[in-house]
């Protein structure tokens, strides 16, 4: 039988849930399993409920599912939030001290959820009520006193310090889980070793605790229905944090300058770049990426443009609020034909919205950002692996067409942890367009010279014989201000013609990817890709065939390509994480077709394949409303 389990660990923010999930993921991945993990957290540093779901499977997975196979709860809130998600024969490992706790005592549970709990579990619900509910659903209950384990361990190892170390709960939780799942203990110890590689003493302490609790669990709870045996390992697999896709893509394709202003979920990428600021270069001295924390996002994009003007591949990385501040400068890059990349990790707006939660609300904004008319490219990645290669594409586009490129990412992608094929740098090509490396004296260089393809040779600040002018005003070929009506027409036409040129020259499968076309076909962009593909696989097993087109180039809109792909599609289902169905709007505008169904989610939580599967089943059964709104997730 194939393995496919979902493991959930929850606890107060700041208590180490994340490092526990890293150990768990690493251990499972090293045994050959595919991993799909995601992190959910409040906009808070300490105390609020955060959790990590890790799905583990021996076949390829690209999403989370609604249900949980095994849950670890150190605190009451985790149980109150997730008790109803445990599947039959699944289990809850929980701190036995918690049973009497009532929802009223958990101050981080907000009023609306308290009243939903009371509806579900009866008035004045306690942990016992929640556990009973799970038990009635067929879940097993595995109570553990984490405190007692620690104090026994302290006694046995003569190390009284351990007793009070609540931080250790996380390692205990992971070890107990893996014991219950009967995973070979060596894998666990290796994973701990590699995660604490730089802190030997901490690694040893954790390893002791792991062994102790692992043995405790295998002895006490031997009857769990699910196991994790070693499986065949595919070569060349890496375990990556979502934001590492674009970060490593930037390093590989030669981005050497990234000014940024901190914002969730974008700053992890910049911090990673700075942590790896010295870059290795083949057969040469090392290079470096200059990462600057600026005073605001306006400064971040201004500096990025300044960097690009010296011929340096330059980018910034932000989320909605920061991107709003960048709009004016984006137009400056547009009129001055400056190649910059803005990596836009979307979250839920408007305004501060749900600052640590997922959303795809900014598609139409990205397309229209900046006043006036100027060409730009908006390009979206669907998963972490893609985002590595797409980053390199975005830089190529920006230099080939000399315009700003907005690379659409989102919180779902940023905070997922996945196994994927090792990124292959050899698959990346670098195209710097018409960037000049040398100019002869007397070249009479003009930055915006008219040419046959409307792209002018591009000098850089510091290039001999290549001095140039830029201005945010309309300009002549030399880059000096003009208000001449005829020059205005020529310059506008020159710049705007790039949009057609982009559509003509970017290969079809870089514009939109077809995963098969059927009478009923899904259209989507960005992170729903994974859940959609997993849902389609599930439906295939029932002989239900659903097509799927993933749009990657969102501006200029690949009208012809999509018109061709959708020619024979009878039913279009638009899947997006927003309220409006923003891609749907583009389809109406460009293809003169209205999607027949929308599957939308705007709770700030990511889509699961289960939800998409269910929605499509409803559509096929003719039971669906035109607009299905998804709600899963705490």
């Amino acid at each position, binding site marked *: 039988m194939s393995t496919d389990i979902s493991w959930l660990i929850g606890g107060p923010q700041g208590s180490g849930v994340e490092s526990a999930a890293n150990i768990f993921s690493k251990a499972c991945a090293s045994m050959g399993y595919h991993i799909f993990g995601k992190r959910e957290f409040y906009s808070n540093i300490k105390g609020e409920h955060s959790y990590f779901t890790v799905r583990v499977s021996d076949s390829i997975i690209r999403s989370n599912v609604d249900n949980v196979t095994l849950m670890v709860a150190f605190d009451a809130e985790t149980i109150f939030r997730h008790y109803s998600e445990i599947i039959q024969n699944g289990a809850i490992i929980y701190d036995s001290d918690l049973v009497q706790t009532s929802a009223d005592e958990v101050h981080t549970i907000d009023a609306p959820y308290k009243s939903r709990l009371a509806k579900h579990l009866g008035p004045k619900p306690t942990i016992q009520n929640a556990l009973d509910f799970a038990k009635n659903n067929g879940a097993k209950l595995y109570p553990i006193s984490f405190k007692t384990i620690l104090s026994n361990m302290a006694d046995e190892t003569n190390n009284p310090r351990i007793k009070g170390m609540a931080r250790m709960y996380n390692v205990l939780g992971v070890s107990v889980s893996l014991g219950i799942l009967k995973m070979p203990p060596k894998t666990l110890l290796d994973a701990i070793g590699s995660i604490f590689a730089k802190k030997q003493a901490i690694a040893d302490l954790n390893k002791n605790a792991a062994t102790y609790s692992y043995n405790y669990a295998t002895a006490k709870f031997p009857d769990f229905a699910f196991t994790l045996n070693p499986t065949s390992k595919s070569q*060349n*697999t*890496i375990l990556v944090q979502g934001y*590492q896709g674009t970060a*490593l893509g930037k*390093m*590989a394709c*030669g981005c*050497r*300058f990234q000014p940024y202003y901190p914002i969730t979920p974008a700053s992890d990428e910049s911090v990673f770049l700075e942590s790896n600021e010295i*870059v*290795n*270069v*083949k057969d*040469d001295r*090392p*290079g*470096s990426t*200059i990462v*600057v924390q*600026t*005073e605001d996002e306006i*400064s*971040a*994009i*201004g*500096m990025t*443009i*300044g*960097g*690009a*003007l*010296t*011929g*340096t591949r*330059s980018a910034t990385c932000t989320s909605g609020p920061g991107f709003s501040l960048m709009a*004016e*400068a984006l137009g*400056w890059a547009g009129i001055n034909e400056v190649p910059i990349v803005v990596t836009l990790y979307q979250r839920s707006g408007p305004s501060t919205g749900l600052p640590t939660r997922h959303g795809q609300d900014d598609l139409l904004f990205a397309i229209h950002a900046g006043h006036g008319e100027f060409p730009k490219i908006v390009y979206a990645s669907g998963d972490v692996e893609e985002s590595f290669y797409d980053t390199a594409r975005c830089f190529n586009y920006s230099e080939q067409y000399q315009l700003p490129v907005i690379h659409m990412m989102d919180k779902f992608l940023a905070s997922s942890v996945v*196994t994927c094929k*090792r*990124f292959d*740098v050899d698959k*990346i090509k*670098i*195209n710097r367009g018409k960037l000049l490396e040398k100019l002869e004296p007397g070249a009479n260089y003009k930055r915006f010279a008219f040419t046959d393809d409307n792209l002018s040779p591009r000098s850089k*600040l*510091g290039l*001999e*014989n*290549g*001095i*140039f*002018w830029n*201005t*945010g*005003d309309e300009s002549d070929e030399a*880059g*000096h*201000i003009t208000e001449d009506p005829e020059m205005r027409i020529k310059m506008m036409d020159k710049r705007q013609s790039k949009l057609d040129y982009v559509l003509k020259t970017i290969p079809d499968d870089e514009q939109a990817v077809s995963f098969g076309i059927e009478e009923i076909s899904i259209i989507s962009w960005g992170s729903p890709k994974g859940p959609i593909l997993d849902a389609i696989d599930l439906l295939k097993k029932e002989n239900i065939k659903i097509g799927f087109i993933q749009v990657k180039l969102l501006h200029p809109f690949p009208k012809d390509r999509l018109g061709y792909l959708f020619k024979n599609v009878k039913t279009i289902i638009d899947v997006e994480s927003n309220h409006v169905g923003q891609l749907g709007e583009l389809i109406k505008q460009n293809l003169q077709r209205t999607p027949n169904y929308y599957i939308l989610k705007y709770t700030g939580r990511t889509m699961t394949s289960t939800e998409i599967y269910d929605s499509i089943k409803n559509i096929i059964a003719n039971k669906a409303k035109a607009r299905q709104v998804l709600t899963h997730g705490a």
Partner: protein
Amino acid sequence: MELKLGDYKTEVHNDWCPGCGDFGIVNAIQMSLAEMQIPRHKAAIFSGIGCSGKTSHFINVNGVHTLHGRVLTFAQGAKLTNPDLTVIAAGGDGDGLGIGAGHFVAAGRRNLDLTYIIFNNGVYGLTKGQASPTLKLGEKTKSLPSPNTNYSVNPIGLAIASGFTFVARSYAYDVRHLKDTITAAVKHKGLSFIDVLQPCPTYNDINTRDWYAGMDEVTKVTKPRIYKLNETDYDPVVHYDEENELNQKLTQALIKSLEWGDKIPIGIFYKNEIISQYDKRITDKIPNYLENPPASQTISENGNPSTDISEILNSLSV
């Protein structure tokens, strides 16, 4: 081959009002570049938006006319990626001390090796004479409907408080003094700031050429208001790395910056080359930054990436 003053001038038509102080500033920048013989391709003038913002088009070196208030951000981005450039940022008082004040403060904290010149005319020239952040409280220039309701910002004081390591003032009609000040600022190792008193004959009918010369009819001053700090015993330089020395020079500069009215000092208020430049702070982390800065790095060979990320990928391998 020696570069002449004329080599630093463009043929672009200059549409400033007759008598505008901006002419003097452009001339002084050109003279200073010629004096220092900076190769044209190695210099870049960044400018903001306003009458002053047009400056970059009149100087025959790289010229980047940016956005209102954002000139320092563009300039710093270029300097960081190509430290070999001589970077001068120029802009209005509204540009740099109003809409761009946040960048002004942040730039001071960084202390990159570049020069920032503010054209201080007390008004928003290009939008027809509204009050700029340097106009004094209660003053009513020509096109204000009523007297200014805001207290004025002190550019010299703000620069000192923000961490600029060279802080000076000059006067648009004293082109020689201004040229010398610009040259000293460019040669300074670190971030330099020059507050240039710039009469705007069209909108500022208070701080006029005559007023600065002490010849206006409104007030009863009879001597030039402007005097030169280097003709007094004022010593702006922080000579050694001691708290007392630093504090003394900072306070002295701050107090000097408050002088206004009958006597207006110009010259260097403060100079400190002991505080580390930003590029030093980078080379502490990235030793070869200056020999191999971002703009000079090879990133590809025959269209293939030169960067080797295998070490990181290995660490992610399972």
